[in-house]
């Protein structure tokens, strides 16, 4: 995708974001399937797997370190 295409996509996303979604239209967003980070304990065990078996731990709010000396 060209840089102009990327800019258009970002602009469209930003413009959509400016429209407030009324509370009574957010039922689908409250569905447990819709959580962007998933169930906390499931996310934690997945993150630990990837942190300890790949070289790219940390950086996104989940610190490297803090256990088992293998990060």
């Amino acid at each position: 995708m060209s840089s102009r295409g990327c800019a258009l996509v970002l602009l469209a996303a930003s413009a959509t974001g400016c429209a407030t979604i009324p509370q009574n239209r957010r039922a689908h967003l409250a569905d447990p399937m819709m959580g962007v980070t998933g169930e906390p304990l499931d996310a934690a065990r997945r993150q630990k797997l990837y942190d300890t078996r790949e070289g790219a731990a940390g950086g996104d709010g989940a610190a490297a370190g803090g256990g088992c000396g293998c990060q």
Partner: protein
Amino acid sequence: MKRVLRPYAPATASAWLLVVASATAASADPPQPLPADEAILGRPSDAFHVESVTTRITSFDQNGHGYQSQSGPVLGPGSERTNVLEPQLEILASQGDRLKHRFWVPVDVVSAASPDAIDRTPASADVVSSASRRNIAGQIDWAATYVADAVTGVTMNSGVHLEEPFRSWHAGLGATRSFADGDTVVSGDVSSFFDWFDRFDITGHRHGRADRSTDTASLGITQILTATTVVNVNYGLTLQRGELGNTWNSVPLTTMERGPELLPDERLRHALVFRASQFLPWDGALRLYYRFYADDWGLVGHAAEGELMQRLSPHVYIGALYRFYTQTGVDFFATLANPNAALRTADSDLAPLDSHTVGGKVVVDLPVSPSLRAIHIEVGYERYFRTNDLQMNIMTCETGYRF
């Protein structure tokens, strides 16, 4: 905290009905001021109230080989066979309407090549021989969130990690603020870890203590785009200093023997994450994830993940997951290193590799009674495999009680 603010459906609906009913009945009278929330819902209790208790147990069954392991030929690769059993406990509680608590206790029971039995007579066991001993690690983590007002929350967390040759303390501070009636949530947090552990050589003998610090700062934004779409972007920076290896990893050398791993004493990591959730018209949902990672050891990684979920009934849904990950490896990775090299590692986790994860899950939420709102059950299986000879079968099961 990156959660989407969700409508408080039962209480909101009840309050709305009451307000509509009272407004209709009083339509002929002069306008009256609306009753306060407390008059309708009652004053929230300041007592400690447990909102949910959740347990999850996960089993990791790993097979594979890596050049850092001495459980094999001198020039490797050696076995990376291991089993891990990981129970977790999470308790969510509230204290009045302004204070929320989260207690989290993960435990790892590792049966593998571990430092558990080393430095004991007759000497050097696991690091130079077979995977045999058992090692137990546990952590206690407490996070308290103060709800300053309807749009602002501040979270403080702290914890300790205990493992036989290893201690770790951590603390963090984060804040969230929502805008546009909750459509936009901006979050930021900082955290610091301090690890303190025994230093061993590659023959399994102890040489005092080593330590490292890990400091992380991150900034994120979650945006509701439509009534069925929500996205999240997060950038984080992590700086690590100190002993950054486990101290007993070894490296095959061109002199036909093994030497210790030599790593820099500092590592700066960057990660940019994009997440999106899209509700699908057939009562399903698609969750997408992409992560870009780069650090000053020369490792660049990309992870992409998609999870498709389908609701089968109001109380049951199923999900299928695929994740692809690729990394370049660190600049000084070698499976046969020069003995005079200033930096060297043969750790298979730091090698150039691709990995795949495929899996599925079933989730059930059963309503029970007014006092026990629901029982949550989740069962899942995943298969993880890497291109440099590592495979893992993962079974996981979660049970939760929502009060």
